[in-house]
């Protein structure tokens, strides 16, 4: 016994755990700061600079700004953008609310499958709904009589974006409706309140902030999306498309920057209001609340089933059409099935684009999740300082910055001739950086939520036992948060597979990715090829998601012995 004591004491004195910890925490935080400055803040500042003080010959500068924002063309574009985006909000938010309500507060059967179908649009680039609409309602579409004035234009944009944004709105509303205190409903019914009155006085006040957030999200996504307008917009031009054309078509960098800055406004505005509302609504769910579980109610369940099935039918119809059309030999003349459209090898960059996309997705998922999870750990579990506050703020910015704007910022920053990182421009590495930065906030919030659920004394316990923080992170924190980490991996993978808005400005022939290839094929009139590539993206991201979900479930089962701890 005495000997053991002596050994323990000797070992304790020698351990340089403190220095290693400081390196891990301080070094990690400063590294994060450097990365966030390079990947988020400086590109945005570069865009600001280019727009306001840029070369007038490229459409930059204050004079050009005044001219641009005062022009009739700009007002027309802005009007179009606002009109279609508002229409999408009015269609999507009520539908998504009904859908979310059905999944969270009623007893409709088959919720897992319904939820899976509703998330389909997340797995494909935003062009896919547009392409499917062309096959359905276009000049040679199967249902062309429904839109006799042609689908190209306002309705094409609205329908395409409605499908594209539906799952985004749904996810916000699902979480807004996830928590309900059963005691409130018991109290309401004991006082004789009708279900409708209970909805108005309990459910609605608890979820209206989510409705607002969903509305803002859909609006911002629509305003900044050009995947749908470029495919089915026709003569109905919108601002996002104009920015894209200004930079890629006309080399009018200043003009692109100005429109980019303008597109930042709705996002920033809604983001600020949302943050304010969220602060006001905190603590709506007390610690002693009892989770509400819906009881069967035939009329209500039937009505919601009808709604949910209609939405799913539309989604399945659209996505089924896209997959089907990709398999048709020569639309609409030869409807026999073949893999002819999948012969990408004959196209410039065909299979290379798909391989690049896989590389991009895997690299973003692996490096992104490792960086983001470790970074979140360093933010959540260390002493708060001005540095951590700054980092938090920087992590929040990408949420308010649309992909299109971020992509433009990257063009302006990394394409500067005297930027030492200029060599990255056009490489797949920069695409990875841009993708991780673009989807940073959601991933970081997932990690932070998981980390905050861990006992805050774990780190203190490790310190008191003289265990280096980094090895504690690997031995305890990481295993405990593995499901959340897999979630982040999946999110980054799928986002990288489907994103167009940011990467469109950054690729070179060698780093062409699949989603951009879809756009290019569609542009070149090869709609079948575009449908085929979209289908491939859809299948890949859905397949990987299922795989990761399976892995996560297996993991939870294996660790069930100790995960019960959460209930203690």
């Amino acid at each position, binding site marked *: *016994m005495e000997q*053991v*004591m002596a*050994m*323990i*004491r000797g*070992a*304790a004195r*020698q*351990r340089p*755990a*403190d220095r290693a*910890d400081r390196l891990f925490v301080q070094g990690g935080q400063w590294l994060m700061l450097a990365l966030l400055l390079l990947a988020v803040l400086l590109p945005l500042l570069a865009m600001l600079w280019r727009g306001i003080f840029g070369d007038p010959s490229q459409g930059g500068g204050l004079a050009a700004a005044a001219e641009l924002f005062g022009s009739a063309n700009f007002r027309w574009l802005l009007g179009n953008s606002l009109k279609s985006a508002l229409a999408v909000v009015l269609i999507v938010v009520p539908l998504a609310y009904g859908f979310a309500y059905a999944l969270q507060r009623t007893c409709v059967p088959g919720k897992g499958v319904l939820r899976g179908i509703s998330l389909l649009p997340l797995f494909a680039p935003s062009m896919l709904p547009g392409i499917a609409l062309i096959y359905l309602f276009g000049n040679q579409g199967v249902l062309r009589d429904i839109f006799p004035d042609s689908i190209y234009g306002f309705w094409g944009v609205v329908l395409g974006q409605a499908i594209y944004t539906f799952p985004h709105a749904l996810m916000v509303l699902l979480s807004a409706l996830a928590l309900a205190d059963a005691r409130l409903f018991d109290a309401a019914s004991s006082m004789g309140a009708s279900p409708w009155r209970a909805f108005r006085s309990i459910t609605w006040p608890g979820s209206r902030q989510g409705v607002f957030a969903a509305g803002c999200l859909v609006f911002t996504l629509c305003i900044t999306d050009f995947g749908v307008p470029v495919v089915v917009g026709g003569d109905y031009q919108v601002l996002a498309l104009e920015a894209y054309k200004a930079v890629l078509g006309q080399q009018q960098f200043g003009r692109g920057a100005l429109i980019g800055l303008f597109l930042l406004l709705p996002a920033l505005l809604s983001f600020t209001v949302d943050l304010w509302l969220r602060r006001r609504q905190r603590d709506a769910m007390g610690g002693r609340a009892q989770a509400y579980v819906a009881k069967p109610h035939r009329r209500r369940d039937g009505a919601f089933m009808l709604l949910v099935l209609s939405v799913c039918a539309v989604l399945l119809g659209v996505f089924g059409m896209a997959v089907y059309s990709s398999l048709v030999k020569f639309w609409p003349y030869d409807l026999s099935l073949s893999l002819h459209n999948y012969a990408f090898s004959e196209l410039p960059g065909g299979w290379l684009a798909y391989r690049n996309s896989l590389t991009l997705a895997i690299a973003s998922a692996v490096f992104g999740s490792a960086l983001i999870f470790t970074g979140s750990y360093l933010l959540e579990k260390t002493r708060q300082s001005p540095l951590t506050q700054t980092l938090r703020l920087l992590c929040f910015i990408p949420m308010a910055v649309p992909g299109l704007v971020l992509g433009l910022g990257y063009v302006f920053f990394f394409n500067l001739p005297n930027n030492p990182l200029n060599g990255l421009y056009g490489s797949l590495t920069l695409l990875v950086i841009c993708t991780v930065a673009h989807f940073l906030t959601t991933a970081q919030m997932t990690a932070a939520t998981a980390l905050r659920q861990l*006992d805050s*004394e*774990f780190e*203190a*316990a*490790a*310190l*008191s*036992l*003289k*265990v280096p923080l980094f090895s504690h992170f690997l*031995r*305890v924190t990481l*295993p*405990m948060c593995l499901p959340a980490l897999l979630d982040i991996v999946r999110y980054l993978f799928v986002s990288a597979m489907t994103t167009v808005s940011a990467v469109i400005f950054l690729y070179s022939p060698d780093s062409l990715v699949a989603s951009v290839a879809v756009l290019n094929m569609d542009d070149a009139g090869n709609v079948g090829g575009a449908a085929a590539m979209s289908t491939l993206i859809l299948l890949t991201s859905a397949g990987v998601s299922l795989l990761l979900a399976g892995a996560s479930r297996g993991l939870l089962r294996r*660790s069930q*012995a*100790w*995960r*019960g*701890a*959460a*209930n*203690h």
Partner: protein
Amino acid sequence: MATVDLQLHAIHKGFGTFKALDGVSLDVAAGELVCLLGPSGCGKTTLLRCIAGLERQDNGRILFSGRDVSLLPPQARDYGILFQSYALFPNLTVCQNIAYGLTALGREASRNRVAEMLDLVGLTGSEHKYPAQLSGGQQQRVALARALAPSPSLLLLDEPMSALDAQVREHLCIELRSLQRQLGITTLMVTHNQDEAMLMADRIAVMNQGRVEQYAAPQAIYDAPATPFVAEFVGQGNWLPYQRDGAHARVGGLSLRLAKPGHSEQGRLFCRPEAVLVNPVSEQDNLFSARMRDMTFLGNRCRLSFELDDLPGHALLAEMAPEAMPQLHGNQIRVALPPHSLQVFA
């Protein structure tokens, strides 16, 4: 087992404008168990975290056996800590949890040490269970074993009983105390529960608003509270406003004889309920007639609420064993406030 004495010199700690610790000084002798007792927000946990190095004091010095550790990080101090939540790592087994701080020890030695600790806390056989599979009391013992495994010379306990059911608390308090005596390890325990503090401590430091109000043995704290706060926080008491009149105190229309009159001209008299004598058989000082308002039966004792006839509207309490209850005839009683039981506060 080597153990340390602990000295705190004028520790200050503020959070913004809030003074969590306002000049705390404390000496803990080697092998002693000291309780920091106080209401929530009094600074007791902050003080413990400063000693642990988890919080950095703004000012003041912390000495472990004369070694200044004030500015050292937690890893460079030498202590074990038991957290309120126990902070057991859910993904590690009991065995792995206890061995967590023993990595520098080598496999064989580490295994032996774990077996020794399991034996010490009486959990041999639970090595391969996960914390979630244990009861609250068992979890506490694992956490204690983990804290003690690297044989620290100081043990810090942060509200160790608060997560446990009332029934097992007392038992575990006694167990923990005998373990501490057996190891002879200097121990500092934070609690807001006076019963736990009374049961376990060699000395109690009663804290309020970032200051130590009184630092003394449990009995001294109870019998001779140094400040009104201590008197009020520990146990129950009666308070009577008074004006001094020589060796007597005037309370309303009454005159009370005092054993220790003190110096201030006015203030408050303090008297424990169990010191009040109801319908005494023998002649007593300070005997007054009173009217009974209410009587509560508390199992092992009875509590009587009454008003002095000359001081209406001022409820006072008396406590006694049920068998000592006098025969009551109506509501009219006589109560004595013995001079030696009356304490004077300015």
